[in-house]
């Protein structure tokens, strides 16, 4: 079937099988490889993107379901002139990433979290990111990064 998805402000139209997962569409049809695949049971969140502004695990959405909708991936978070989103800056500043594989999903989930709760506590950040696994950081610095991006003082 033919699907048309607005990804990071760009319209991507392609012929895909009905069963094509959104994560594969984003990575292979749109060529945007920030979004990663870390599991096969919707557990890890490495594939998290925004679908019409809400965070979803794109391994568990069909490309067909996103037809006619808007998707934002990590590549779409930077400004047009390459200006970084506060979360991109704060993840680096707080050392909230190591291998970087969970980072795209983690930042997208964090963006969604901050949209719903602009000034979260550390505990609220932890609850908000429960759907995103990280194997490197032990989460501590990720929480700090989200707190910093929210404009709050980071109390490590």
């Amino acid at each position, binding site marked *: 079937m033919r699907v048309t998805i607005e990804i990071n402000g760009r319209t991507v139209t392609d012929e895909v099988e009905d069963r*094509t997962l959104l994560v594969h569409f984003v990575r292979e049809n749109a060529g945007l*490889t920030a979004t990663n695949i870390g*599991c096969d049971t919707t557990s890890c969140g490495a594939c998290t993107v925004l679908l019409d502004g809400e965070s979803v695990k794109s391994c568990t959405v069909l490309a067909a379901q996103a037809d006619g909708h808007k998707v934002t991936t990590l590549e779409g978070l930077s400004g047009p002139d390459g200006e970084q989103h506060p979360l991109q800056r704060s993840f680096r500043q707080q*050392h909230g990433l190591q291998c*970087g594989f969970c980072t795209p999903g983690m930042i997208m989930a964090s963006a969604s979290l901050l949209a719903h709760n602009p000034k979260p506590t550390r505990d609220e950040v932890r609850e908000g990111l429960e759907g995103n696994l990280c194997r490197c950081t032990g989460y*501590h610095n990720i929480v700090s990064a989200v707190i910093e991006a929210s404009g709050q003082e980071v109390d490590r």
Partner: protein
Amino acid sequence: MTATEERPTPMGYGPMNRKEDARFVRGHGNYVDDIVLPGMLHGAVLRSPYAHARILSVDTSAAQAHPKVRAVITGETLAGLNLAWMPTLSHDVQAVLATDKVRFQGQEVAFVVAEDRYSARDALELIDVDYEPLPPVVDARKALDADAPVIRDDLEGRTDNHIFDWETGDKAATDDVFDRAEVVAAQDMLYPRVHPAPMETCGAVADLDKITGKLTVYTTTQAPHAHRTVYAMVAGLPEHKIRIVSPDIGGGFGNKVGIYPGYVCAIVGSIVTGKPVKWMEDRSENLMSTSFARDYHMRGEIAATRDGKILGLRVKVIADHGAFNGTAQPTKFPAGFFGVFTGSYDLQAAHCEVTGVYTNKAPGGVAYACSFRITEAVYLVERLVDVLAYDLGVDPAQLRMRNLLRPEQFPYESKTGWEYDSGDYPKALRLALEQVGYEELRVEQAAKRDRGELMGIGVSFFTEAVGAGPRKHMDILGLGMADGAELRVHPTGKAVLRLSCQTQGQGHETTFAQIVAEELGISPDDIDVVHGDTDQTPFGLGTYGSRSTPVSGAATAVAARRVRERAKLVASAMLEVSPDDLEWEKGRWFVKGDPAASKTISEIALAAHADLELPEGVEGHLDAACVYNPPNLTYPFGAYVCVVDVDAETGQVKVRKFVAVDDCGVRINPIIVEGQVHGGLADGVGMALMQVMAFDEDGNHLGGSFMDYLLPTSMECPSWELGETVTPSPHHPIGAKGIGESATVGSPAAVVNAVVDALRPYGVRHADMPLTPAAVWRAAQGDPIRTDLAIT
């Protein structure tokens, strides 16, 4: 710190934001599955549904007929190429694709190459394999029973499941100590089978250029050079025609050290089809078939005086290695560095025996930040000390303090022959106890116990042994464990450093630039660190066992010092003075007594490439290389304290507080060190409370997905509280020790000790991991905690 403040780049050691983050936070990392080559095909592996079964036939005709399938490879295909079996890192062989039998559930049976990844998976369903199920060996403790089915009947003359016996220490002296001891505490314990589960699974893109004969493999490997050499040996390809590229790796944790059948199949797929072939496993394949970790059934005994002086340790281990002995460790160490099980204590004698056995499970054993079995060693001794404290009725922290090695004993030769380089253990333990408020916590605990609430405090003190290693006794498949570094300073004073180690997120691109910066006074921002491409980098054995800083870090410092000495000769020509009249200050050589007469490293670099007349014997340019053969391992250490609250009604364990004091000698980048520790502490909480790869009696894998194999989320981890002491390694060029695996090694015992401590009112003396709510609840009902799931 506010959001706008960018951390300045230090000229050397110190906190520095990571260079590699610039691409990762923008989604511009380049991982294996991101690689797309023209004409690239996709491979998928058909796996065994049985733990143990004879293969009667494999019918691939329907799969071959699939319109999008380009090739179907079976064990028979590979046998024709002499590739059906491959050597393992433990001098055993492993089936690439099964020919005679399958020996674990999830084992590789056939490989389909198709035009896209969906079709490749479709075609797997079209392959018809006729199996004759055989009784499996699941419980390692029964693997040597007379009636146990023989798993490895492929091996000439093999009539049982025995792999090796290995021992260390002095048996007679140890028995003597135990005979004389006033107190002996014994405990059986299982370190259950777990899995490193990096976020990115294993995969490869193999590309054989038939015109040039050059094979390029982009792959998830922690040891690209070793892979190249092994492929050359296995496939008979000339080594200069093999290029291994390890691009950005989404975590390794020891999972990506060895060669997996999928890699070999992708290579064969490319040879057969003439096209690049990508193979990327999914999560369940990763958990079921790639390197597991631990699976040590241990019986430990600790001897002591009645007033708490530890005298000796005696240990027996049954090691479950799965169906093929693929354990990754130096050749002469079949049980890795388990010999450091004497830990951080001053004792009179120790002895241990390890027996390795085959079972119908995936191969592996050494992985998951274990530093070659030190996870098991530390867990054993730290549990035994707590068991002893329990029996003696003394405080476990005080018992440790009483028995720790003293600073003046270093370098210390352990009773099993390991020479610990340096340490101030009491200082680290005191700091941890102070930082956590140990005395106050004990008061709080007593009050809570009076109210019937369960709270536990667990202490763990560990000594690591990392940086393998001296080539006279450490090699992997005959390759000595030395590592190279090549440093080149360009005419304009910028530099490129080429390394044999391979980061998987540990920050090498930043910290290795910092080492050069410290030595030469070139900003880390001006130093590019190249790794992971065997055509571009010097030979070495890669990154695992926390060996990068000890070995490659040393090689880097030595290469930089060689550049500095070359720069000195060039500077002497520039300044027209004798080299002996020059003195170094970070970034420049100057004339003694005349600091204004100086040349910066940048000026020297330009001169070294220009028309300056150089002294006799001095070549132009400014570069140097080093192959570093470490004289010894480094022995970082740490003191950890974990505080848990346990809900007796539900068995739920909440880690309330975790204080970790680590000493890894000189810290190149404290931010990165802390991140390494954070990650390892999460591993410890995960292993202690959640993670296990269990099997049922038929050998079915019960932990084969993230639905069952539970990893800690942000909710299970507390806000870590770190402390540090600095005891440099005397033999290391910059005094640095490895740190990457310390927290994974040191923390599980702290968590378990805390939970057992919480359960003390129920008379619990030991509990096997993972301490799930069900297990803890059972204990609170008065039932013993055993990880029965993991041992059926």
